[in-house]
């Protein structure tokens, strides 16, 4: 039945009255998403593409049940918006905005974890269960329904892999872009756990990147818990120049992982098929 987004998922957009908010409200409606409301302080009483706008999430909840919020406000407003969504107990919060300060993401993640609320992002294109719905900004036409679950740090690589699969006749169950920031609400392991229990998903694609530890942690998870489905992984940035570290602290916590080699080795060691190119990915899925 896919994960996170279902046909009946009721969605709001925080920041619906901005330029991008309006554009993507339109796109979501075209994809038959149950977009029940928008939230913009000071714009309560207006509408966006016929969808009512409220001043606060609390006001929306007086009128509608809400399953998910998509946050599309400027970076400086993300913390306040996410805190509002969390404290109003929206169970799924997708933060599209990029350039969110890391300390804001730290607070958002800690608050969400405390309240057991799922945050996706920031800096993500969101989630799509093709044919069922989306909480995201992806063009629906390049995605198609099927049995491949996708987890990707990169938005464009989510598009790329999904559209490639679509053109080869292989549909997707759910595509989850976990976002490109160092601190994110949801990481590979969290989504692997969801796909594990999902009957629609037969194969999982992990699209990783250099930097961070999410891919290594996923390998550790698979090693410790096994995994009942086929996982195929790709790591972008194999030829990218090395980044620079600040101080000793970074070196101490990193201790060698985060490179493409470290990720490829960790994933291979636990039996995950790691491909070297995106085209190879199409062949093995």
């Amino acid at each position, binding site marked *: 039945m896919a994960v996170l987004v279902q046909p009946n998922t009721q969605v709001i957009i925080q920041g619906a009255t901005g330029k991008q908010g309006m554009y993507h409200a339109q796109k979501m409606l075209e994809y038959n998403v149950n977009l029940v409301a928008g939230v913009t302080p000071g714009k309560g009483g207006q509408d966006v593409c016929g969808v009512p706008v409220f001043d606060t999430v609390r006001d929306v909840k007086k009128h509608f049940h809400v399953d998910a919020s998509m946050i599309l406000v400027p970076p400086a407003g993300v913390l306040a918006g996410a805190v509002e969504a969390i404290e109003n107990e929206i169970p799924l919060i997708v933060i599209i905005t990029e350039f969110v300060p890391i300390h804001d993401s730290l607070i958002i*993640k800690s*608050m969400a974890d405390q309240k057991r609320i799922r945050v996706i992002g920031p800096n993500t*294109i969101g989630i799509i269960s093709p044919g069922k719905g989306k909480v995201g900004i992806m*063009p629906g036409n390049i995605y198609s329904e099927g049995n491949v679950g996708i987890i990707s740090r*990169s*938005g464009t690589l989510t598009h790329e892999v999904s559209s490639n699969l679509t053109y080869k006749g292989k549909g997707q169950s759910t595509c989850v872009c976990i976002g490109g920031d160092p601190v994110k609400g949801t990481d590979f392991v969290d989504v692997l756990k969801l796909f594990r229990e999902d009957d629609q998903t037969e194969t999982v694609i992990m699209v990783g990147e250099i930097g961070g530890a999410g891919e290594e942690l996923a390998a550790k998870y698979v090693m410790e818990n096994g995994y009942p489905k086929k996982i195929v992984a790709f790591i972008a940035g194999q*030829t990218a120049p090395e980044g620079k570290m600040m101080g000793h602290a970074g070196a101490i916590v990193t201790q060698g992982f985060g490179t493409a080699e470290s990720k490829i080795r960790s994933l291979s060691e636990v039996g995950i098929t790691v491909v070297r190119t995106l085209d190879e990915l199409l062949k093995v899925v």
Partner: protein
Amino acid sequence: MKLYEFEGKTIFREMNIPVPKGKVISSLDEAKEAAAEAVYPVVVKSQVLRGGRGKAGGIKFAENEDELGRVVNELMGMVISGEKIEKLLIEEKLKISREFYMGITLDPKSSLPLLIISAQGGMDIEHVAKEYPHQLFKMYLDPLKKPRQYEMIDLLLKTGVKGKVLVQMSRVLHNLTECYFKFNAMTTEINPLVICEDDTVIAADSKVEIDDLALFRIKAVSNFERKEELLDPLESEAKVAGVSYVGMGKGNIGLISGGAGLGMASMDMISVHGGVSANFLDLGGGATTEKTAQALKIVLKTPGVKGVLLNLFGGINNCEHMAKGITSVLDEVKPNQAIVVKMRGHSQDEGWAILESRNIPLIKHGTTEEAVVLLMREMEKEGGM
């Protein structure tokens, strides 16, 4: 934004972390003044942002005014790992009894700030971390809760410190964590944290990096001067256009992509097919017609570039706008390099139509590999390889 040592110490002082008495100088005139006032012996420390300053000879001592003059003359203008020394910090020379390490940074595994202390501080802390990890003591910090004094004392007791030193260190540690949060730091680090012969505790160095994305609200650093970095002219142009630019040295292929992930994967693919990327421009979110056009113009100007791959998605962007940007450049510049566009997403039909009307080689449903192969072929055609 990385802070110079003396800037970090300004912040430390504000946060009640003790630092040595000292003065920053940026000219020989200032040096004379400082030399007359100084209490000898002093240490003279080059203010550079890159590491390895000590091993590169960027730190020197002076016992008197004459020596200080000599040392300043030696250091000022010297180049360390490509960075020219333009400021020196002249400080009292501490009577060091022991050196500790204290640092806070984001731990990528837990996605939490991690506090690390060690009684084995000084230059070789990375060696200690690798060879004697049990001599490092760690604590995760809760972003929702102010650090507690007693937690700091608990942690420090593990290093064996006691008495007056324990109390001073716990204050430093507490204030360093407050500093980390208050200034939205990526890293706050003291190495070495010195215990002097008289048992006072002083931060002899500072390494502070502020999250660039939070700079807009960190007033304290807004008056720290930064010279505009000497950028490659194309890089400056990209900066003005609001496009992220990564120069790769010599190469024959220019790459424009609508996101870092796809950009990196495209570079990897170019490399697989024997191409060499000259640079990589990331349009990011909100790629308008103008931004796309400017990015393309920059790439076409890059010396040695014989072909350009545009690997684009209309996601948060829109294919029609990007296509217009591309064709506008063709009209203006009339390039003789090969150009291949791979593009799909929102308004793809409109975008495709625009590109096809100008006979631009286009990948609609194909893969990035197909796009790279097509570009290689086009480049051969134009004799570019």
